[in-house]
């Protein structure tokens, strides 16, 4: 028994050791096999010569990485350094969420992934010239997630100007957001920090921390590079004081002098950092200044990372499919208005949007992630609240060249005109085509208090209804988020409208347009058919039948006992 256990453990650890050895080894020499894997699996995006210009690249944004410049976004190494082989291996293994870069764990073996790492390194000379291994970011001194750290991080977020790009609450709606380009000259959007599932490099606190210290090379996102970003050289209090001073309209002479001192201090620290980078010898005092400054930078970055972490839900919400349908709740009397706190008290149905890639013009790179929907109904009316994130508030001032139409943010909600009876009855087609028409609500940012009712027979074939029903509409755009509230009577006179009734399952679908992403006409994001229902008020029978059945069962048990007892006495 014992020997067997030991033998088993030996085999187990032996296998594990072999596995981890193959895993930990660095990339092998570039080989024919790596080239083959690359040309089979990567070249159509990253290009035969690694310039990021494969045949699929045309439609994609962010563009597939150009490997010839040695710029890598997701690294465990300090700013300005190349990634380690393990970094490359890891990103190829898991892919880059929120972009078209797929994971390769399913399609390529561990060995093939190492081979391809070796191969993509051949596109950039820098990998050969660098004899020294790149300097890795240490995760020592991690400040764990805590309320207090989040608070400090929040202050830093404002202090350091993250707001300008990522917006007040992190939805990527800062004032500079629409103006950013990356090192290759392509437009790039600041991340929506509330959507951790779209972070390119993972949304663990450690991942986020590494992005600040190491930077996101090629992106306009600032990183600590031994420069004045993160007020290098100042303690937390000093940097707070400096920002306070700078925000004054006027400074007294003494204050001018004070801020000047701070700048001197930062310059000294930056100079030392630069010299260290160049490999110069430093005195002990200088090293001390540098180390102290670095410590502050690391601490700040942990606080920031904790704050960023606090902005996102734990995971992406589950889409409202299967039995998880959108259920409108019954209320007696008047329905809650757009700003009623009751909307906050329950979970929304989540409808992830995908690009419309079926009909020209197509949208391959959607910027709207999904719509969150809640609903209430009363005896006569139904109210919906639609909520979605959009980095910009675009109201049609700019005209799209191809279509001549204004570019503006919009949302459409699609229902069938008649609810299909039974599961096999034809529905209107996906995208509204086919024999059966759809009934649409179309809202545009330029007319925020109005929803147009449309009847459509196809994605390009929608007409405003002659009789516009009595839809009540309210909307807001705050911190990168639209809220749209629509109220309608359950039943209308108009034959082209959908008529609503509790307990009926109604197909529902959505489209959204982000004007600043060039969305217009069929270039948009959309969902396939989902289901919506006015949840019937629970039947009062639920209080009647169960007690009756319980009482009956007690009677039955006693009856059975009496019966058995009588039989026993008879038997005797």
């Amino acid at each position, binding site marked *: 028994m014992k020997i067997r256990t030991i033998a088993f453990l030996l085999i187990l650890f032996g296998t594990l050791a072999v596995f981890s050895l193959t895993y930990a080894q660095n990339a092998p020499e570039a080989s024919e096999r790596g080239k083959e894997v690359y040309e089979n699996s990567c070249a159509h995006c990253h290009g035969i010569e690694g310039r990021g210009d494969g045949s*699929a690249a045309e439609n994609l944004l962010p563009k597939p990485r150009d490997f010839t410049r040695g710029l890598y976004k997701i690294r465990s190494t300090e700013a300005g350094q190349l990634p380690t082989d393990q970094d490359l291996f890891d990103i190829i293994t898991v892919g880059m969420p929120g972009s078209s870069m797929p994971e390769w764990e399913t399609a390529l073996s561990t060995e093939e992934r190492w081979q391809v790492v070796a191969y993509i390194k051949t596109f950039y000379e820098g990998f050969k010239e660098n004899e020294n291994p790149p300097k890795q970011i240490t995760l020592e001194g991690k400040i764990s997630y805590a309320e207090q750290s989040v608070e400090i991080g929040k202050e830093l977020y404002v202090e350091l100007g993250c707001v300008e790009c990522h917006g007040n609450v992190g939805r990527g709606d800062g004032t500079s957001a629409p103006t950013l380009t990356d090192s290759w000259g392509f437009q790039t959007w600041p991340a929506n920090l509330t959507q951790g599932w779209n972070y390119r490099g993972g949304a663990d606190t450690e991942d986020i921390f590494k992005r600040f210290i190491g930077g996101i090379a090629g992106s306009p996102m600032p990183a600590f590079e031994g420069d004045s970003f993160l007020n290098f050289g100042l303690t937390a209090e000093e940097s707070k004081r400096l920002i306070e001073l700078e925000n004054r309209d006027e400074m007294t002479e003494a204050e001018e002098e004070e801020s000047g001192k701070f700048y001197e201090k930062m310059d000294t620290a930056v100079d030392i950092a630069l010299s260290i980078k160049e490999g110069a010898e430093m005195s002990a005092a200088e090293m001390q200044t540098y180390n102290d400054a670095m410590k502050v930078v690391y601490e700040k970055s942990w606080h920031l990372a904790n704050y960023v972490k606090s902005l996102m839900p734990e995971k992406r919400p589950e889409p409202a499919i299967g039995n998880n349908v959108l259920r409108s709740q019954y209320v007696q009397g008047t329905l809650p208005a757009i700003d009623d706190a009751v909307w906050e008290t329950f979970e929304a149905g989540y409808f992830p949007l995908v690009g419309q890639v079926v009909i020209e013009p197509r949208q391959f790179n959607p910027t709207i992630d999904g719509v969150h929907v809640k609903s209430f109904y009363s005896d006569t009316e139904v109210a919906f609240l639609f909520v979605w994130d959009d980095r910009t508030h675009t109201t049609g001032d700019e005209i799209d060249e191809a279509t001549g139409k204004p570019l503006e943010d919009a949302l459409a909600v699609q229902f069938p005109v008649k609810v299909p009876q039974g599961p096999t009855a034809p529905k209107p087609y996906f995208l509204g085509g086919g024999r059966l028409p759809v009934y649409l609500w179309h809202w545009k940012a330029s007319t925020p208090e109005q929803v147009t009712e449309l009847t459509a027979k196809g994605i390009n074939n929608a007409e405003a209804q002659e009789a516009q029903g009595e839809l009540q509409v309210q909307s807001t755009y705050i911190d990168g988020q639209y809220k749209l509230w629509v109220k309608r009577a359950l039943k209308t006179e108009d034959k082209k409208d959908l008529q609503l009734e509790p307990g009926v399952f109604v197909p529902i679908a959505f489209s959204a347009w982000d004007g600043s992403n060039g969305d217009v006409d069929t270039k948009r994001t959309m969902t396939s058919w989902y289901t919506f229902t006015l949840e019937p008020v629970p039947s009062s029978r639920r209080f009647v039948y169960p007690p009756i059945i319980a009482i009956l069962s*007690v009677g039955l048990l006693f009856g059975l006992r009496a019966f058995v007892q009588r039989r026993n006495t008879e038997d005797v």
Partner: protein
Amino acid sequence: MKKLSLFTICLIILIGSWVFLEFVVGGIISVPIPNSVIAMYMGLIVIAILVHISVEDSQFREFLRPIHETLVDDRRRTHRRVLVVLIPLFLLGYTYAIIAQRANPPGSPRDAHPSPPLELTYKDEVIGTMQDVVNPFRHYEKDDPEAFKAHVENGKRVYHQNCFYCHGDHLDGQGHFAPYLQPLPANFQDPGIIPNFQESFFFWRIAKGGPGLPAAGTPWDSAMPIWEDHLTKDEIWDVILFLSEYTGYQFRTFGEAH
């Protein structure tokens, strides 16, 4: 150890089978079984147990003994009291749960591979009968490997400009838009797909997309685009070559068993 009574054994078998079907097969092996099928299996097991215990009189009495004792025997008084509370409570909760249950939407039965039309068309042009049409570039595989390679390469381009968003980089139906479409995009790595169809069938599906399906395929749900609006005939044949080259599966040719 005390020998288990026949009654307890039967109870264990019943509960054990249910746990096995629901959690082991449905959960761990993850082949979820519809509730109606579980009910059927459980019914069969109950019948088997009844047959087993009623074969002999003594067996049957042995089976009833614990029930009998619980009902009348004085030594079982506590059991009895607990049960007379638990059973009605359970029924109370159970009936309440059934009545208060929310209605769920009906599932949508869908034939993923309905019969194609007899004639294969591209836009309005008739190409031939579904049975007889073959991929015009397939013969290069033997006759002119260089030309064949060029067609596959072109098919790869078409695929990555148009299809991978849904059908995925690995052709496994896991593109980055895929999780949010119902029904899911086809998985060409599934050994039950390519080998079961002729290339003409795929041409039909690609050319006419979801809306080209007959009613049994619930065309109104499918997100599969109508590609004859965007791609030339040759491009569709090329992308079909690419699908089989990349996955390593051979399309069925006419005459092979389905």
